[in-house]
């Protein structure tokens, strides 16, 4: 049980005795991993930390927490804004052995008040915010992966041309390892998608995975930290734009992409972007279905696991059934329409 007393003991053990935990709060939603904001007093000064651990039975996303920590640690010395990583604990007692990572709290919020206000000023602001996000993605995507050490632990495609193939092969292995049902329609959808794998990319980039609205920390309309790196991978930067959660509909999509291309110095292939929009629907099946395993085993019998790992997965399976065999651009339009559902931040705002 994580409470103030156990956090107090934990932070004392890591930081010495002059730390008092003054309050803490579990962030919402945090279904895959549990995140706690921890405020402290240290020798008369205030401190703030983010304590993150796997949920009971393991995370939804089939990626170890240590991988996310190493990504953040690798990014911290670069121009890409991330929270300062402080330590990783593989099996601490406070969580009964679930891994923990601790970062310094960043002053900001993943919410942008007034973002969906009416009027020309608000629309212009949304476009500026989309540009800000594009610039941060460009900084990430132009990192030298060898010089920053990511090639030591991130699975690397052999070439830019092999980015899509590499991601396909990796996620087929994960699908076969984690699925809780045969999902033959998902297998068939994979074979259909395999016929359309992009065979070029501007470069092999470190990609964030989930990014965009709700994923980053903002202050005064600027990104102060890119957050949530559990799905980071090396691949085609177009793939990150397919996962940019509301950013391409925040302003004018083409203007936003051109702004990015100017900052990055290379172009995003729009056909590749279409492919990755559909591919991300497929990838959501193994990613979320992995979260059902602790539900079925009884380790985590909670309703969000049931809804994400089963219901949501079956919904994505239905969506794949609507698209299978169609031209990829038509399938991408189906995804775009579906993405307008009320759970999207821009549609849920009302």
């Amino acid at each position: 049980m994580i409470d103030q007393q156990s956090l107090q003991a934990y932070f004392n053990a890591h930081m010495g005795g002059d730390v008092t935990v003054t309050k803490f709060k579990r962030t919402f939603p945090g279904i895959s991993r549990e995140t706690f904001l921890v405020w402290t007093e240290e020798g008369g000064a205030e401190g703030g930390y983010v304590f993150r651990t796997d949920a009971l039975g393991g995370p939804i996303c089939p990626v170890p927490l240590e991988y996310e920590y190493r990504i953040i640690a690798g990014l911290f010395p670069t121009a890409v804004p991330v929270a300062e990583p402080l330590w990783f604990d593989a099996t601490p007692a406070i969580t009964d052995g679930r891994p923990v990572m601790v970062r310094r709290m960043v002053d900001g919020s993943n919410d942008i008040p007034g973002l969906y206000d009416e009027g020309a000023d608000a629309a212009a602001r949304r476009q500026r915010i989309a540009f800000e996000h594009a610039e941060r993605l460009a900084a990430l995507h132009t990192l030298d992966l060898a010089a920053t050490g990511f090639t030591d632990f991130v699975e690397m495609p052999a070439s830019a041309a092999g980015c899509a193939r590499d991601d396909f092969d990796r996620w087929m292995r994960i699908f076969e390892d984690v699925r809780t049902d045969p999902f033959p329609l998902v297998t068939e959808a994979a074979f259909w998608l395999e016929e359309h794998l992009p065979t070029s990319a501007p470069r092999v980039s470190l990609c964030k995975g989930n990014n965009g609205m709700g994923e980053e920390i903002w202050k005064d309309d600027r990104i102060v930290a890119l957050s949530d790196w559990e799905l980071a991978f090396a691949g085609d930067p177009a793939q990150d734009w397919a996962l940019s959660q509301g950013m391409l509909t925040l302003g004018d999509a083409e203007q936003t992409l051109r702004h990015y291309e100017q900052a990055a110095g290379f172009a995003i292939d729009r056909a590749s972007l279409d492919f990755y929009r559909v591919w991300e629907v497929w990838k959501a099946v193994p990613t979320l279905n992995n979260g059902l395993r602790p539900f079925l085993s009884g380790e985590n019998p909670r309703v969000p696991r049931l809804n994400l790992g089963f219901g949501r997965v079956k919904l994505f399976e239905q969506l794949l059934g609507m698209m299978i065999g169609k031209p990829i651009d038509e399938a991408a339009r189906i995804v775009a329409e579906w993405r307008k559902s009320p759970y999207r931040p821009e549609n849920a705002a009302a």
Partner: protein
Amino acid sequence: MMPTATQMLAAVQLALREHVTPQIEDQWAQSALRSVDVILNHLQARVPAEGPMLHQDTSELVTLLTGAREALGGGDPALEAFLAEAPALLAGYASVEDLQAINHTGREAVDVLLRACHAQRGQAGVDAVHAGLRAYLLRHAERESGFFFPTYVGRPV
């Protein structure tokens, strides 16, 4: 006359919507209620239809997989187990749990056959089996569509 399971689930949902949800301000509790509401929608669609759906779907699988075995050969454990057990199960009274289990085995066999078809595509007879399997997959998705769509569209948590 007893109320049906669907009527009882709907009553539970109504009670939560009328008397619990309006009182809840904590965002974790609101999220839990949203999730419960979605599950109740799912169950109201699934409980009355799942047994007949699985019976129909599994019957189609018997025909489909018998033909596939004739065309491509047998040997896969899931395929053999399915074809050995399914006809007798379908002929008698089968519980929903038994139908779920045999349907799962049948779909495991479909998955194995799809992979075999993919590896041997272009060969005589293979493409026809593949087309039959794909058509089945879409019918299966259509049969269970109402369990998940639009029930699970909306906020995920």
